[in-house]
């Protein structure tokens, strides 16, 4: 097995030349809905020695190595556990912390964004799982994930906000 799993966001360098050539010949340089339509019409799929042919009704391309499929699935599950952790953290802030003195909105301002972030992370993880799976099926580079940026941005914002809330409740 020469194809290397390059991880989320990495550029897959291994692209079987034979399959790339077949795809170019078939002119299937389109996004995944369009590719699915092509497959549903019985469009041609590239062939590969070790991979079974794509069946109608599935996204275009051929079934990737099952290890890549499973790794993609584990990434999705890990993001969903992250989402659950964010939800429970937000709920804990709202329900378990004592109210900040002089900042009655403080707990909600900190907790609710975390809960909303949990929902966003879960939905985005599903969309990215689909995107990655489609890329794997077509031996294309793995698309870069936006989830780390969303996570970093929101957590940084919540951290800054919690500093503000603490300062306001202590100083005023």
């Amino acid at each position, binding site marked *: *097995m*020469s194809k290397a799993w390059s991880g989320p966001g990495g550029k897959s360098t291994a692209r079987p030349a034979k399959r790339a050539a077949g795809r170019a010949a078939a002119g299937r340089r389109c996004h995944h809905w369009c590719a699915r339509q092509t497959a549903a019409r019985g469009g041609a799929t590239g062939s590969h020695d070790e991979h079974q042919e794509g069946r109608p*009704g*599935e*996204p275009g391309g051929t*079934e990737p190595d*099952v*290890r890549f*499929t*499973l*790794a993609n*699935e*584990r990434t*999705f*599950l*890990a993001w*969903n*556990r992250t*989402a*659950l*952790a964010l*939800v*429970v953290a*937000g*709920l*804990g802030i*709202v*329900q378990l912390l004592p*109210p900040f003195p002089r900042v*009655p*909105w403080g707990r*909600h301002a900190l*907790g*609710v964004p975390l*809960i*909303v972030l*949990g*929902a966003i992370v*879960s*939905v985005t*993880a*599903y969309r990215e*799982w*689909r995107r990655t*799976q489609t890329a794997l099926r077509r031996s294309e580079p793995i698309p870069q994930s936006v989830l780390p940026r969303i996570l970093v941005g929101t957590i940084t914002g919540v951290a800054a906000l919690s500093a503000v809330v603490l300062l306001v409740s202590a100083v005023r």
Partner: protein
Amino acid sequence: MLPGRPEDRSPGAAALPEDPEDLSPGTAAERTRLAWERTAIAFGAVGLAMLRGEPVAGLIVLAVTPVIWALGRYVSATAPPEARSRRLLVVAVAVTGVAVLAAVAALLGHGAPVRLR
């Protein structure tokens, strides 16, 4: 060690393949099953945490836990792509539902003072 799984005995370093998984391909499926179980446990933990403040929401989340666990039991290398997609959609919908429940509990729940002055 699962029945039917090849023994994970590494041969000499010279015989190691490029990808260690080539030695025993079952480990990827096993890792994935464990990831599903961790996810189910996370659901259970969230449900228990919510049970204290919001018993109804907590019970709903706890009821989802065995569903996630059962989905993880059927991680199969040969599952058709559409079935896999549907199973993961269930997880995404469940997590989003938990987030919605938590948001409602945070904004309207017991002992949650929504007095914005």
